[in-house]
């Protein structure tokens, strides 16, 4: 179970609730509270997203999680770092540092970045096209693993002895010189300059759902986040992704699949609906329409709010360079449910296309149990509608219900994120070779 910490909540109007203080989203005490509540709920990890563009206001992911590592003891910390505008050597050091200071609780969410505008913040004329971004990402990950494998290995004693050779260092000296990654997009000479991370590699997380995204997930990811609207779609995704693993010599349990879940939970159905209605009241229609219009070749605000979504004006997933799989999901949802524009805006407002649930803890636990036992999920990426209230409700009402059903842990058993998730330590290549 992962907590996705995000602004004042995953409902786009959460900041307008009377109890919300949006200025807190730059305050470490606010995140510290969320992390502690999640840790009280025995959640596996806390995740933050990131981006390199936009008129948005947020804390950079690796810095935020490093600060949280000092305020938490058990919970895993998953930071997003993109592979299109960063350097493998830097990422290898950032994630290894987080893993060291947190005692083995780090994870890295590998993203290619969806916005064309990012390139201009790095002096690049254009954002690479979708499938090329994934080729770049795979190289980036390969280079980073090479670096971690070549880290100073405390298990090998003997001190550092420079010797002749390409790296100048002897593999059995406690420092493994190998790295030397040479690719089409990245070349990294190495060797790495920090001790090998406590987890071997920080846990590798990925969230691509398009064809290229799934292919990369199957090859390199240990956790996959995904947005799914229905149980059936989630089951299809789950089966597809797991079926790709043998081709890479991997077992099903080496990849944990976590669909997003946006829970609005209260003691009664009526109360939960009221919470949802209050949030929907606060949606700024104009802004929401402006944002959604970019997915259409039309300005949605020129159409009647209570009329059908002009599906024929929608851009096809293949025509856009960002979040392709999400576009498909939205189009399917609009078509299957014959949504009006107002309904579409509201459906999107809570969780941007992730599975949203409003109701009691018992009913939600039923739903989660179904997904978990019937091949749609190994766990969930929890995206509360508002913080801290929505998270507290989930931890205090839903987690105990899942524990009663023996579906969730009663206490942390391990100390590292790998242990929480039941993921084995990677064996460094040089040890495998000896």
């Amino acid at each position, binding site marked *: 179970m992962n907590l996705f910490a995000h602004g004042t909540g995953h409902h786009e109007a959460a900041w307008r609730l009377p109890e919300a203080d949006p200025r807190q989203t730059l305050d*470490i005490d606010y995140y510290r509270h969320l992390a502690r509540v999640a840790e009280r709920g025995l959640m596996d990890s806390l995740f933050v997203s990131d981006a390199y563009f936009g*008129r948005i206001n947020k804390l*950079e992911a690796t810095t935020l999680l*490093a600060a949280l590592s000092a305020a938490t003891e058990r919970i895993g910390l998953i930071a997003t770092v993109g592979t299109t505008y960063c350097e493998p050597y830097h990422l290898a050091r*950032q994630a290894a540092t987080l893993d060291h200071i947190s005692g083995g609780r780090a994870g890295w969410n590998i993203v290619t970045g969806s916005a064309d505008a990012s390139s201009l913040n790095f*002096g690049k004329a254009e954002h690479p096209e979708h499938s090329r971004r994934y080729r770049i990402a795979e190289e980036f990950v390969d280079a980073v693993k090479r670096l971690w494998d070549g880290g100073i290995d405390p298990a090998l004693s003997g001190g550092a002895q420079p010797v002749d050779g390409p790296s100048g260092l002897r593999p059995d000296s406690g420092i493994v010189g190998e790295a030397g990654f040479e690719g089409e997009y990245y070349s990294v000479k190495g060797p790495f300059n920090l001790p090998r991370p406590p987890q071997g590699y920080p846990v590798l997380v990925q969230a691509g759902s398009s064809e290229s995204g799934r292919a990369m997930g199957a090859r390199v990811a240990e956790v996959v986040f995904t947005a799914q609207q229905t149980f059936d779609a989630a089951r299809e995704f789950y089966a597809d992704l797991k079926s790709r693993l043998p081709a890479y010599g991997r077992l099903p349990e080496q990849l944990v699949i976590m669909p997003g879940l946006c829970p609005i939970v209260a003691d009664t159905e009526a109360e939960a609906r009221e919470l949802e209605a209050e949030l929907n009241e606060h949606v700024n229609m104009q802004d929401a329409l402006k944002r959604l219009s970019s997915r259409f070749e039309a300005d949605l605000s020129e159409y009647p709010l209570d009329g059908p979504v002009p599906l024929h004006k929608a851009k096809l997933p293949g025509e856009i360079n960002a979040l392709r799989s999400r576009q498909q999901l939205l189009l399917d949802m609009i078509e299957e449910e014959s949504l009006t524009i107002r309904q579409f805006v509201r459906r999107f407002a809570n969780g941007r296309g992730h599975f949203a649930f409003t109701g009691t803890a018992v009913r939600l636990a039923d739903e989660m149990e179904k997904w978990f036992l019937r091949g749609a999920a190994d766990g969930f990426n929890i995206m509360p509608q508002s913080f801290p209230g929505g998270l507290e409700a989930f931890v205090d009402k839903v987690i105990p219900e899942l524990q009663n059903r023996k579906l969730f842990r009663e206490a942390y058993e391990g100390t590292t994120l790998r242990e929480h998730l039941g993921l084995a330590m990677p064996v460094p290549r040089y040890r495998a070779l000896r």
Partner: protein
Amino acid sequence: MSAGGADRKLILTAALDGPDYARCVRQAQIAEQAGFHAVVAPESSDFRLGGNGEPEAALEPFSLLAALSAGTASIGLIAEVHAAYNEPYHIARKLGALDYMSRGRAGCHIAPGPAAAAGNFGRTGEGGPGPRLLEAEAAATEFAEALRLLWDSWEDDALVYDKRAGVQMDEGKVREIDYAGRYYAVKGPLNIARPPQGQPPVLFAVTGARGRSAAAKEADAAVAPLLSTAEAALMRADMRARMVRNGRRAEDLRLLAELCPVVAETNEEARELEHRLRQAFGAASERLIFAGTAAAVADRIEAWFRQEAIDGFHIAPLPRPDLLPAFAAKVVPELRRRGLFRAGGETSTLRSGLGLARPNNVFATLKRRGGSD
């Protein structure tokens, strides 16, 4: 606090070192308890062996300092940045985040970065190391300039969070900066609001003339390897002249001398230690070492400080783990008795601790003056 005058107080900063987090935590706590203005986390962009044959590496500075921000309350947190291998957008965001999380204690030390690391960042082969390394000082100057503009891409009051109207920000107060330099280009705006300090302080290391010219343009503080008070006086005079030529006020730059303090019970013991250290450093790297009893070290610090060429000292990584604690426990109280050092425990931003004003937002200032928006 002002740069001159009778109430002039020393500025002290210290380097963190090594890949061991627990050790860095101890160093930061010692420095904070002693009342230091800041700790500096070094960057390492490549693998290298130290004099003792052990790998010389540091944890990634921003992650390290973010973690330290949680366990400290008043000390400044300065991250070294290798400009040749970084992008202003990434660094401006990290400093912004660190500044918010530490409530105004973030800063950065911009260094060109070692040429030997080029291979770790794909800067080898045909293209060679590239202009960011070949023209390092000019690149560092641009880097700092881009950082300031990115921080200023949000006016201080851009976020309005008007719940009733459903409006989060005043879009007119968040701007693209369209920075297009010779070494860096960044369009902006940044995706974090202007940091609490406005612009977290920027330090440069100054050695040659080009380094001085860069610092005179962009630095809030400069760290220099100075060996004598005469050299310090020349450096200060030169820096003042350069700053005035750049249209800056001469007092808007703090000058710190790099120092290795060696404190022992007796002067003989200290000199013996100093001798061994100098041998270990080697003749090639001459350094400023003050060796002696606490009183003797304080005497030398006082003599340098009273001459008014420098504003304080930066304690570089020390070759022995006991030297920083000894300095903090013995020399700092002595400096305080002499009225040369602040009381300690002050909570302020790093900027105000250094006696520097919070800078105005350049874009807001332009707008007020009726300049183009």
